[in-house]
């Protein structure tokens, strides 16, 4: 994955390991669990959106499929939580493939609308299929996840598992970006026709990264369901899908790390700034508009150009 990325991952791992040792407060730990869960989705979404340039406004649906599959199978069919999580992955792969294949032939606005429509259909299903999902009031009584015989029940337990999963997802994503496939994705995002003319099977790579990002979202959704022991349709609606996209945007439309930062910022901020309480819709909308006007390439590139500026100054001072 490259030297810089490896160092960054190790630093992140150390910070993540130290955090619960320094911070014992359950509330702050739980915020970090949510950061991890959101980041699991945004890291995959970044590959799709930032690298391959494909807009998905419906990834909340995959998150929801993971959460609800885990919830329904454990609550209504007394399934083993780990098995239910795996079933969620299987279901999401099928759905992502079925929806993705025809959708990814579409470009720009059409793709955005198709994913928006799909996301909304999923929400309607979660809301209306009350015999399975218990409808708008949500599905309660989702059991804890057990791994290797150990049941997770504290915030710390979930923190460890979620961030371990995130680190794995992150490493995989970083490996992909630094590979032949990553370059293929970027070529698709940059100029799909030129990519095709060079032998890049654009349809294949688009669907692969779409399904991969859907799987990340599904696992994140399942973890969400087990952590809260509850899931409701309003947790996985269109606004959630859009928030995920805003996390990727605000973090930087340049690389995977930005998606991680974006997830952290947009998960922590609403907790820290209580004005978010009533105006979160306004603020998210405002962020999106302002970012597009002033920083269409996101915070990540602003940081990157800052870095270049510093390097230039530094080299000038030397000579």
């Amino acid at each position, binding site marked *: 994955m490259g030297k810089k990325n490896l160092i960054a991952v190790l630093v992140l791992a150390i910070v993540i390991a130290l955090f619960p040792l320094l911070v014992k407060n359950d509330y702050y730990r739980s915020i970090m669990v949510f950061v991890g869960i959101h980041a699991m989705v945004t890291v995959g979404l970044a590959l799709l959106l930032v690298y391959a340039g494909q807009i998905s406004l419906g990834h909340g649906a995959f998150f929801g499929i993971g959460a609800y599959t885990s919830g329904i199978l454990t609550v209504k069919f007394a399934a083993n939580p780990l098995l239910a999580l795996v079933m969620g992955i299987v279901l999401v792969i099928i759905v992502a493939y079925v929806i993705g294949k*025809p959708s990814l032939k579409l470009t720009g606005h059409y793709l955005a*609308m198709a994913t928006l429509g799909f996301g*909304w*259909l999923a929400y*309607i299903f979660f809301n209306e299929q009350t015999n399975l999902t218990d409808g708008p009031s949500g599905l309660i009584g989702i059991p804890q996840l057990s791994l290797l015989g150990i049941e997770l029940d504290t915030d710390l337990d979930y923190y460890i598992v979620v961030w371990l999963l995130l680190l794995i997802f992150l490493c995989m994503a970083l490996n992909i970006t630094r590979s032949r496939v990553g370059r293929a994705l970027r070529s698709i995002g940059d100029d799909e026709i030129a990519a095709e003319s060079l032998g890049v099977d654009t349809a294949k790579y688009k669907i692969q990264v779409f399904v991969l990002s859907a799987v990340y979202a599904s696992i994140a959704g399942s973890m969400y369901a087990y952590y809260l022991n509850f899931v409701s349709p309003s947790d996985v609606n269109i606004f959630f899908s859009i928030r995920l996209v805003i996390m990727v*945007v605000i973090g930087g439309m340049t690389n995977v790390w930005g998606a991680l930062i974006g997830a952290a910022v947009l998960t922590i901020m609403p907790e820290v700034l209580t004005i978010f309480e009533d105006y979160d819709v*306004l603020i998210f909308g405002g962020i*999106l*508009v302002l970012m597009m006007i002033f920083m269409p390439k996101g915070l990540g590139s602003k940081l990157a150009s800052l870095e270049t500026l510093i390097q230039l100054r530094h080299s000038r001072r030397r000579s």
Partner: protein
Amino acid sequence: MTLSAQLAQYVISGITIGCIYAMVAIGFNIIFNSTGIINLAQGEFVMLGAMSMVLLSHFHIPFLLTFLISIVAVGIIGGLFQRLVIDPLRNESMIVLVFVTLGVSILLSGSVMFILGKEPYLPPAMISSQPIPFLGTAIDPQYLVVMGVTLTVVVLLTLFFEKTILGQAIKACSINRMAASLVGINPRKMIFFSFVLSAVIGAIAGIVIGPITMMEYDRGPMLCLKGFAAAVLGGLGSIHGAVLAGLMLGLLESFGAGYVSSSYKDALPLIVLLAVLFWKPTGLFGVTEEREI
């Protein structure tokens, strides 16, 4: 209830809601024709029209005046949207434009939530008279208002684009922007008018449907999706296609709610949207284009 009464009800409500989808679709088409972008905030114009009527109803002014003020206000919002947000970004990539219209739609609905809260409101109707008996059932006259207004809008628009200088100028820009600018038409001004016109049509739709279905702050996205479904079904860019497709979708939804499942009624137009996008993105009346390299 007799079969004919039931059918009459489904047909009337289907056509009525179809008129709204048609008007949203027309709004999409006008903006798409001049700019090539899909305005994800189109549904918000509808919502704003109805909400404006709600706000102004506190002032006890004649209906016609509130109607005019509302459409002017929403038209101004549409114009500001274009001037402040769309115009500066006109050279940016598709992704940026999608996101920015999305952001504005969130801003608009968020602002309304801030001012009016989350509850549904009932905007005032033009006439409040008795339901009219028809084929064994009774029709609320507001339904007829919706149909009449939609018909008027379509006729006026057709005349506008065929007979007026401004309309023809906007059309010219859609067909060939460079040629239009060479004959002295300012494309950016035409785009501005397109947005204002789209916003006004959206507002009219909201004003007439509000008294029937009520309106809440977050109705925008669903209207946007269904209106877009009508727009693509009828062939993106075609005003008359949009009307036909809108009516078809409305009838589908109405009959679907009655005979298939009322909880999934919203899903039907969405399924149509996906079907059209996947298999015939040029719509029922469009022509398949070859990719240009």
